[in-house]
């Protein structure tokens, strides 16, 4: 199945823009739908819109792979998959109708299904099989491929996931897709935060078809996805109260898209990633827990330093996801790793034009 594949002309136009910016050392801000403008450090520069590069290049359901141009709308991609009973298994948040595949890969954000059991687990990077990108010289690089197993050369397709565009312009991505689960249901339990964390970690050690979890304000909700028999068996083992199907779908959509009331308001929103067994964060503010305990959303005006200290003491890290602040958005990396980041940037983007500073200052 092929739709509206971008032509050689659009690549040429993109290359001209990149080469001109490189020659004049003019920063470029790679931006498609702009749905994730809020994410990352602020970056200046003239907008480079890769949306001329759009369309599904190849999709064969029996290969479990879809290849699409970066400018393809996520909604368009997901409907094409749904027509064949398949899905993007990392359940990416859109944060707006204009969200594109390229932005999804560059942001690297996964949704509620991130830590599911069995074939469904994983973040964005776990499903990326290959990518084409344009570097700061206007050269097109092709990494990985469209097959499930591929260890030829370094795995640079996954390196683009979460790179926030600092290495180059993503042109095309091949993603592993999965069948939609035949049955899905959501159970709710009235539980404290600590009791929820205990249960989530205990359940994750058993072969249960858990595909999402969320705790907030004394209620734990978990989603089960799988075969009829597996979901029925798990329901019997877990108990709890069952949500009706349409409210459950709307509920998980609210979590994924951050339209749940927890996310409303202007207070800073921190995305704290920790080992799932870490006890409740001892920080001021309200919390929402996802991913079996590994993701803690925190609404708090506490100082960045205090929040990072708690996250790092537990083996995790904290990102200022939304909200104004003078602090660094991302937790800094160690000196030897930063040196590697700088050398990679120097090769892929020698003139330093792509999204300067969006990931880290000087990068």
């Amino acid at each position: 199945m092929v739709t509206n594949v971008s032509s050689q002309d659009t690549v040429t136009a993109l290359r001209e823009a990149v080469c001109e910016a490189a020659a004049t050392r003019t920063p470029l801000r790679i931006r498609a739908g702009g749905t994730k403008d809020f994410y990352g450090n602020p970056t200046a520069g003239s907008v480079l819109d890769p949306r001329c590069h759009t369309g599904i290049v190849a999709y064969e359901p029996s290969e479990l792979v879809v290849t699409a141009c970066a400018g393809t709308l996520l909604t368009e991609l997901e409907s094409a998959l749904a027509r064949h009973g398949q899905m993007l298994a990392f359940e990416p948040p859109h944060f707006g109708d204009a969200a594109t595949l390229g932005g999804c890969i560059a942001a690297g954000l996964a949704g509620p299904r991130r830590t599911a059991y069995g074939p469904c687990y994983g973040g964005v990077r776990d499903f990326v099989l290959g990518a084409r990108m344009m570097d700061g010289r206007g050269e097109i690089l092709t990494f990985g491929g469209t097959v499930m197993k591929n260890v030829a050369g370094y795995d640079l397709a996954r390196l683009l996931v979460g790179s926030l565009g600092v290495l180059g312009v993503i042109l095309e991505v091949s993603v592993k897709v999965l069948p939609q689960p035949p049955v899905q249901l959501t159970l709710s339990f009235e539980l404290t935060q600590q009791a929820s964390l205990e249960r989530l970690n205990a359940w994750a050690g058993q072969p249960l078809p858990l595909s999402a979890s969320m705790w907030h304000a004394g209620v734990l909700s978990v989603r089960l996805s799988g075969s009829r028999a597996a979901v029925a068996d798990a329901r019997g083992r877990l108990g709890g109260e069952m949500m009706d199907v349409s409210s459950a779908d709307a509920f998980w959509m609210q979590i994924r898209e951050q339209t749940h009331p927890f996310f409303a308001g202007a207070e800073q929103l921190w995305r704290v990633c920790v080992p799932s067994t870490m006890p409740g964060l001892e920080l001021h503010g309200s919390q929402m827990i996802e991913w079996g305990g590994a993701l803690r959303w925190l609404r708090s005006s506490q100082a960045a330093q205090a929040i990072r200290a708690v996250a790092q003491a537990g083996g995790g890290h904290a990102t200022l996801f939304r909200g104004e602040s003078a602090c660094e958005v991302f937790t800094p990396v160690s000196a030897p790793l930063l040196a590697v980041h700088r050398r990679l940037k120097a090769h892929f983007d020698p003139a330093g034009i792509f999204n300067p500073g969006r990931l880290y200052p000087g990068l």
Partner: protein
Amino acid sequence: MNRQREMVSALSETLPRHSILWRAEETTPYECDGLMLYRQLPMIVVLPETEAEVAQVLRLCHARGVPVVPRGAGTGLSGGALPLGAGVLLSLAKLNRIIEVDPRARTATVQPGVRNLAISEAAEQYGLCYAPDPSSQIACTIGGNVAENSGGVHCLKYGLTVHNVLRVRGLTMEGDSVEFGSRAPDAPGLDLLATIIGSEGMLAVTTEVTVRLVPRPRLARCIMASFADVGDAGDAVAALIAAGIIPAGLEMLDQAASRLVEPFANAGYDLAAAAVLLCESDGTPEEVDEEIEHMCTVLREARATRIQVSNNEAERQRFWAGRKNAFPAAGRASPAYYCMDGTIPRKRLGEMLRAIQALEGKYGLRCPNVFHAGDGNLHPLILFDDGDPESVARAEAFGAEILERCIQMGGTITGEHGVGVEKLDQMCSQFDTSTRDAFVAVKRAFDPAQLLNPGKVIPTLHRCAEYGRMRVSSGKLAFAELPRY
């Protein structure tokens, strides 16, 4: 020789004498890995016992400009651990401690020399296991698995090494400690963990690995299906996946492979079938029953001529015994065998099998095939005589042509064994110059002095030019001398 003496004496200041080998009778066991076509005695072998000793070895070699080749169990099949005559072979085999199994967090933290299977054995008491299970899992180490991004027979459902490793601690060539990934998801910065995994020991030396453990399924059952035509078997694989099924394992043997392993393994394979498909389901008993029934329906519709379902664990193990013994059986049937490792889109499995059959005639060598069919990952086993240089050359040319076909079919030259030294030429075919330049840049970003396992994975510009000329001039791959650097 002077260089060797000088290095031995320098190393002796930081390592105990028993950890340094340099006499030929001591270093010979390290002259090759699982790819025995390539051999080279290293100048020195070191066997450090602690991370601090590894760091000292690296600092010393870095200061003196001596290249280092890391090695795990030496089971690799692409020559990734092939020593350098003027280099130090760094064995991580003695760093073999399981540091921690945390059943509540479902993680295990281990040193690089711990064997793959030992992790699952340590986790078994908690009902957990480490999912990637390469066929060499009783011997291969987790450090080697990280280097090669190893797979196994369950990776369609449970993923490869890259999906199951959370964190790698390592040392740069300069001896600096670095940590990639973390126990928490989405570690900050670029995803260098994904870059390290499958980097064939060229970017950093792994000293500690934290892996994810998954719950053991309550039950597994296996279907053994026969097909009268290899194309039908390939179509059946596509049909299963199109039906929304992700089998826990999906493996194929062609007739030559079934006939090769049957006398050895007594697995009960249908020797009249052109291809045998092994299709596994795991989960709760009810879930498995439901899925097995669904799988059988799809297989029947896909023209399976015979279907058997394992009724108990012993029978399931028997079905798998043939597949798991394919390599040793090949070793028994022929003086030597050359195991290839390409991946192609699943829908082209039948076409590839027919192409390989045609190549058997062209090169005058037999080539039974076993496939990780669910992943489209082929393991043709070229049988040849390693005592006859002409037979060796034919086997190599045969293998190279299979890899070129993989690229032409939209696949890759290696699914899980790595490039090593074996597939340097085909890297020239699979990747253009700009992309290969990016690989060189990544290598330099981690190892500016280019002393860590140099000469592997990334072909030189000169080599690619020569390979291009050779292919153009003869219209096919010439029989090259061995080895060709």
